[in-house]
């Protein structure tokens, strides 16, 4: 079986993260590994580096992982999480500059076709261009 790029969804709200993952699943079923997390370490609105690391490892694929985030803290915490991964994984994880819901659905759809991490990222980030 050909591996596909994994998708990680990081929102400040666990409900948004889960809802986004549900929409991704509707598009791509189980062809693509999808993981999500949301909420601060006490369960309030926020993001949590430890949960993001777990999500990346759970969606791990030899083709890499694309992360979709909502607001600033989710991006900063995701970048921090990537740096704290095992060294051999760090270069195969990207944080996409894209809207979280549309970006996740587009990225997963592209990933399902067997695209590379760079292609998946480019499709998601087209949504933020122009």
């Amino acid at each position: 079986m050909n591996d596909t790029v994994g998708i990680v969804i990081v929102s400040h709200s666990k409900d948004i993260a889960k809802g986004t993952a549900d929409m991704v699943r509707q598009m791509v079923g189980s062809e693509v590994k999808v993981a999500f997390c949301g909420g601060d370490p006490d369960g309030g609105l926020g993001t949590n580096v430890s949960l993001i690391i777990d999500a990346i490892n759970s969606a791990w694929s030899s083709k890499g992982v694309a992360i979709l985030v909502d607001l600033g803290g989710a991006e900063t915490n995701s970048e921090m999480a990537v740096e704290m991964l095992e060294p051999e994984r760090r270069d195969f994880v990207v944080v996409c500059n894209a809207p979280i819901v549309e970006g996740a659905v587009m990225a997963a759809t592209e990933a399902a076709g067997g695209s590379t991490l760079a292609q998946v990222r480019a499709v998601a980030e087209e949504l933020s261009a122009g």
Partner: protein
Amino acid sequence: MSLQPETFKTLVKVAAEQVIASAPELTSLDQAIGDGDHGTNMKRGFEAVLNKLDAISEQPLHEALKTIGKTLVMTVGGASGPLYGSFFLAAGEALSHSKQLPDDLAEVFGSGVSAVSARGRSQAGEKTMLDVLIPVLETLKTGTGRPDLIEQVRNTAAEAVERTAPMQATKGRASYLGSRSVGHVDPGARSSCVLVQAVCASLEGGQ
């Protein structure tokens, strides 16, 4: 002034307690121009630091700073976690490369400030914690070795935090408010000021 293990332990304890005590103020500042979680986030992070205080104070200084950084990264739960975390991780890293305190204080502090700037992709004048950290760094550069350094640092931090009020935020959640962020002190600048002043107070008290 040399930093003995007991002095360092007291310093971390005082700094953490001051941040925890200022949580309501930080939250109130953040409610004005952000999402209102800065106080609770910082409180959670520094409570975690306090819980590890005994272990932290037994580590060599550079390792202790890294442990503080990692603890903040893992527990704060907002952008300030990676920002403050990166400060302490980078400062610890700088100290591990044959830098000594207090002689290289400005250089070690500067490594932390650079890490915050890189992590937040932010510069001076954008209404962030850097608007306190950068002036403090400048004071450390020019004042290291002077007998009134601690007082200078304390004054620099206090003045710098007030100067964030007229700034318009272009980074972080406050930037969504555009010109409406003007007139409010930045919560991250305020928490940096609390930390810097707590360290000053602890060092003065211990001398």
